[in-house]
């Protein structure tokens, strides 16, 4: 229930026109939106609410991570991209959008990925399925390929590894973009159709011991990665995809139990949309099991 107020962060609400809408993989689409103002504020780890104006079904906006910013030939900001998996009402509609159509978008929302400690030279990103989306912009930032929110590009670490799991090859999206950004990609598929046959934790087993893990994906995967990291004493951040009604911090629907010494119970509900979406796995009560 922690209602301590999020400090005011810059955020804009715009109508954005669709520049392109491309299918990247099975049921997976990349939506490129015009919106220099919104894109100019966004940092890796943050997200946007997206909605189609003028209809009440679906009613609410849906949260999507910043996938990438879009630059013109001179390096000027044009807009941003989101990548989504078609799972329900809104994502079905989004996949059908054509260039020139428009959506409502507000953001950036939430906190960016936390700073990587100075001594860390190698960051290990762990993605489960569509949980890969926040990691392209982050890889670019960490490796000095691109700056965000007005900051110039600056190399933060020497190496970024992406352990990217999916059920099968056809669901892996945008591998070439990660490679082009300079990340070392280790695909893991449950059926062995590409890369390692197995889960992301099997992929982690094959690496040199990670220094700093950031994970995003379905809950069971986050449990497994958090446990893997805890057993080996590796710091682990997890980015959550809790259902959200507002994304703004005003509905209190997106809560998660976070360790708190102030509460007799030892935990307090925090809003994922403004206190997250990324948390230290060690502070998430449900991930300690």
């Amino acid at each position, binding site marked *: 229930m922690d209602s301590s107020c999020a400090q005011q962060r810059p955020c804009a609400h715009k109508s954005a026109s669709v520049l392109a809408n491309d299918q990247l993989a099975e049921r997976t689409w990349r939506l490129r939106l015009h919106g220099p103002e919104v894109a100019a504020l966004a940092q890796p780890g943050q997200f946007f609410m997206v909605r189609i104006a003028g209809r009440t079904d679906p009613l609410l906006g849906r949260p999507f991570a910043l996938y990438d910013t879009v630059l013109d030939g001179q390096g000027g900001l044009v807009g941003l991209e989101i990548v989504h998996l078609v799972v329900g009402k809104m994502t079905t509609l989004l996949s059908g959008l054509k260039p020139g159509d428009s959506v409502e978008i507000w953001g950036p929302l939430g906190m960016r990925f936390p700073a990587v400690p100075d001594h860390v030279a190698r960051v290990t990103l762990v993605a489960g399925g569509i949980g890969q989306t926040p990691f392209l912009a982050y890889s670019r930032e960490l490796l000095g390929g691109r700056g965000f929110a007005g900051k110039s590009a600056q190399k933060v670490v020497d190496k970024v590894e992406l352990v990217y799991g999916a059920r099968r090859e056809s669901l892996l999206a945008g591998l070439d973009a990660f490679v082009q950004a300079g990340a070392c990609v280790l695909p893991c598929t449950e059926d062995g159709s590409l890369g390692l046959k197995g889960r992301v934790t099997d992929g982690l087993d094959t690496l040199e011991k990670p220094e700093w893990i950031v994970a995003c994906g379905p809950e069971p995967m986050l449990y497994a990665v958090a446990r893997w990291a805890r057993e080996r004493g590796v710091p682990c951040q997890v980015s959550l995809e809790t259902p959200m*009604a507002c994304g703004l911090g005003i*509905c209190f629907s997106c809560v998660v139990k976070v360790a708190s010494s102030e509460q007799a119970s030892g935990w307090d509900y925090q809003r994922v949309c403004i206190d997250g979406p990324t948390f230290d796995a060690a502070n998430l009560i449900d991930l300690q099991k």
Partner: protein
Amino acid sequence: MIPPTALSTKLGRLHLPNPVLVASGTFGYAREMAGLVDFKKLGGIVPKTVTLNPRPGNPPPRTAETTSGLLNAIGLDNDGLEYFLQNHLPWLASTEVACPIVLNIAAKSADEFPRMAARVKGLPGIAALELNLSCPNVAGGIDFATKPDLCRAVVASARDACPDLPLLAKLTPNVTNIVEIAQGAADGGCDAVSLVNTFLGIAIDWRRKKPILGNGMGGLSGPAIKPLALRCVWQVARAVNIPIVGIGGIATIDDVMEFMVAGASAVQMGTVSFYDPTAATRVIDQLPEALATLGVSSVAQAIGLVSKTWHPAI
């Protein structure tokens, strides 16, 4: 041209610069919206319900979208009255916000309402109290507004404990006859009734064989409930002599006008802030033109224009 002063409205002793407020539980503590919404334009802000003691709230999932609507079972998740007074009120009362603040409170037992009302007596920055007599997500929370006598007694006790603050009674629509409950609240001495809170509902995931909300049932809000909420306003406006704050599915200027001509002296916009964060300030900008279209020159002239005069054709 309709001057800005013509937008002002009165709820008993409460004077508001315009009739459009944002509803409790759907605008957080307002600070979350700084930078997106120009608070100074609003007719008022009703922060999320505050209870005497902290409450963790219900287990997630706490919301589920339904056709043109939203089910919620937040469970009055809040840090308690003292925390609110220390950490939220000073900012809400500051010049940064500069619009009327209506403190919304809920109680587990009838005696908590006067206790809380007495605690806030005389505090600067609170324009009015709204008693949440109707939260469907808390055991006991709904009972106060399901019986006219109980409703009257609770309202009277809060009024006695804090006689100087304008008092609103927010009612549940989940009753057989909302008119008699509103009459009870009026008899208890409230300045206005807020109509309505959410409609009890449920969403079920039949494949997983369980309700979607962590709490099982929840309260329905959003465009789906507008005709139901409008009907409540209509019935009470035609039968009870008490100002009404209309609430339920209001999202556009047309919705605002419908509630006003049905008898609402003000409205609160709730769920719409989730999917259209600047809706409230936008409809305020559109209000003068809509009043002109109606053929009146002030908000006061629009209130009850239809409900107070209409009779079914014989």
